[in-house]
């Protein structure tokens, strides 16, 4: 495999993974949230090294405030 082809496949792999993430987040927000919590919790336990805890914080979803009612349709207008 040439370097050019390897680079092309790397870009495609990144694009595909990003697309999977976008679709999952948009279409199944609840499941993605639960998955993020499940992944983050073990990393945030006491005694874990600082970098792991930092990673856990990055993975964990932001706390839900308010009650945004829109689903994945993007049609409810911009947020204030």
């Amino acid at each position, binding site marked *: 495999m040439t370097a*050019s082809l390897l680079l092309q496949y790397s870009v*495609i792999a990144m694009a595909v993974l990003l*697309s999977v993430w976008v*679709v999952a987040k948009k279409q199944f927000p609840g499941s993605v949230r639960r998955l993020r919590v499940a992944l983050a919790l073990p990393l945030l336990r006491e005694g874990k090294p600082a970098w792991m805890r930092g990673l856990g914080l990055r993975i964990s979803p932001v706390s839900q405030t308010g009650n945004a*009612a829109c689903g*994945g349709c993007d049609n409810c207008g*911009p947020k*204030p």
Partner: protein
Amino acid sequence: MNAPAVPLRLALIGNPNCGKTALFNQLTGSRQKVANYAGVTVERKEGRLHSAASGRSYAVLDLPGAYSLHAASLDEAITRDLCRGFLPGEPVPDVLVCVVDATNLRLHLRFALEVRELGRPMILAVNMADVARRRGVTVDLEALERELGVPVVETVAVKRNGAKALIEEIDRLAAVRHAPAKQLPEGADLHQETRRLLSAAVSMPTRTAKVDDALDRWLLHPVFGLLALAVVMFLIFQAVYAWATPMMDAIEAATAWLGATVGGALPEGPLNSLLVEGIIAGLGGVIVFLPQILILFAFILALEESGYLPRAAFLLDRMMASAGLSGRSFIPLLSSFACAIPGIMATRSIQDPRDRLATILVAPLMTCSARLPVYALLIGAFIPQKQVWGVFNQQGLVLFGLYFAGIVSALIVSWVMKKWRRDKSEHPLLLELPSYRIPHARDLLIGLWERAWIFLRRVGGIILALTILLWFLLSFPGAPADATMPAIDYSFAGRIGHAMTAIFAPIGFNWQICIALIPGMAAREVAVSSLATVYALSAADDDAAAQALTPLISDGWSLATALSLLVWFIYAPMCISTLATIKRETNSWKKMSFATLYLFALAYGASFVTYQVAVLLGAG
């Protein structure tokens, strides 16, 4: 370290359609949807106001309109609970800004009196003061303030600086918060007190505007009114085709040029294929329909602003009641032409739970804007562009027919549901008819810009993501060395598509259509981009791949298949987000499953009949 100061919470409260959201937008710089009918806002919205004069910041809440704090519908209950501090996690607002329509004080002051009884610091904002003045209505603000015992200010929510006096008053009240100076005595009659306030502070020559009366004589006429409604709807769909063509041609040419340029600049390989046959072909196939979507929305926005829509609801009430719906269902169903999600949410303003459920279940049958690209693609490919009777565009007629079929189907489904339920009583329609208003060009342009932005965000977000995934599934794994079929037939998506034809062949769908149906569940327009990608990847050479989708499908599909797919899209369940919204609004998996199953069954049955009849007639 000092904790950041918690901003004071202001709540905008008032009767429906008094201009709360317009005032909210003015105060916070937001662009929440406003329209000239009751029930546009069905949930609380929050924004920030920064007063330059005092340097204070406020959290501003825009609440759904309510006729009374004795809530009769879900949206009114939100307002009542929030004002009384019953909503979990929502503190009681520090200041209530009660917005009243200066042209309709007879109704709105009654609610202001009810709000005053809450005993919270309150300001009365007399909105639409400019319209009232033009109509000869004069409001003595000082007298009203004296009689009510709360500060009263004038506002014009749709004009720049129209809320200046209100902000000054908010600053004053924030500095020294005090409860209203007056309260109603025990057992006092609100209507009587309203009449007293009107005679003390308001002079109005007539109760309604002359122009409204003159227009209503024709537009609410049982025969001419319905005729006018039919003509308006008909002209909209004619315009969608007649005006959009030059823009669509330009976008198509730009897409072809971009594909050729990128394809020529990159070396042959998978990345070239992803960009040209996947992303550019796929997204270009969807973006081309933007002009038609914008023309349709220009008309819808103008109708919303004009105040005509509640009249249409009134005209259609009898027909809707005989089909098991009420005139109140009209606005949610109309919202569903944009997207079923806000349409389903708008059903919160329907007081009767039975009518609300019926409206939720038929809302997906309204033709949402995401279906327009699919219709436009198939009509463009199979319906010749010619004039009918020398006046009408044939393609526009077919599009009108498809929208009409969705509406008639919704009425039939709700009629069938009415037959099944035990309570067959009909509920009278009580609807407020707003004054007619000439739509502001600025508001229309902002509305159109937002609509275009929403569409482009979808194209750059979920549609792009699904197009990339579909390209991947159509390109991998590659064909084996001893392949006898085109490479795409060996791909993941090719295999899935061929497997699906076992179910969909009886309704005339080939494997390419079957594949397009899956991502179409995430967003309808993706069905078009998916078809564009599938056909670009299936093409024998680059010239064939660069062709627009329309000629490819008009050559490759039979008329029976095209008709069957059109019918499928009238009925098939909406996107996953719509189903999730049905679940949330009904709080029932059972009702959501019922909606999904009945829509699938209807789509399959109708497509089957259409395809088989078309084949019998020689269109196969």
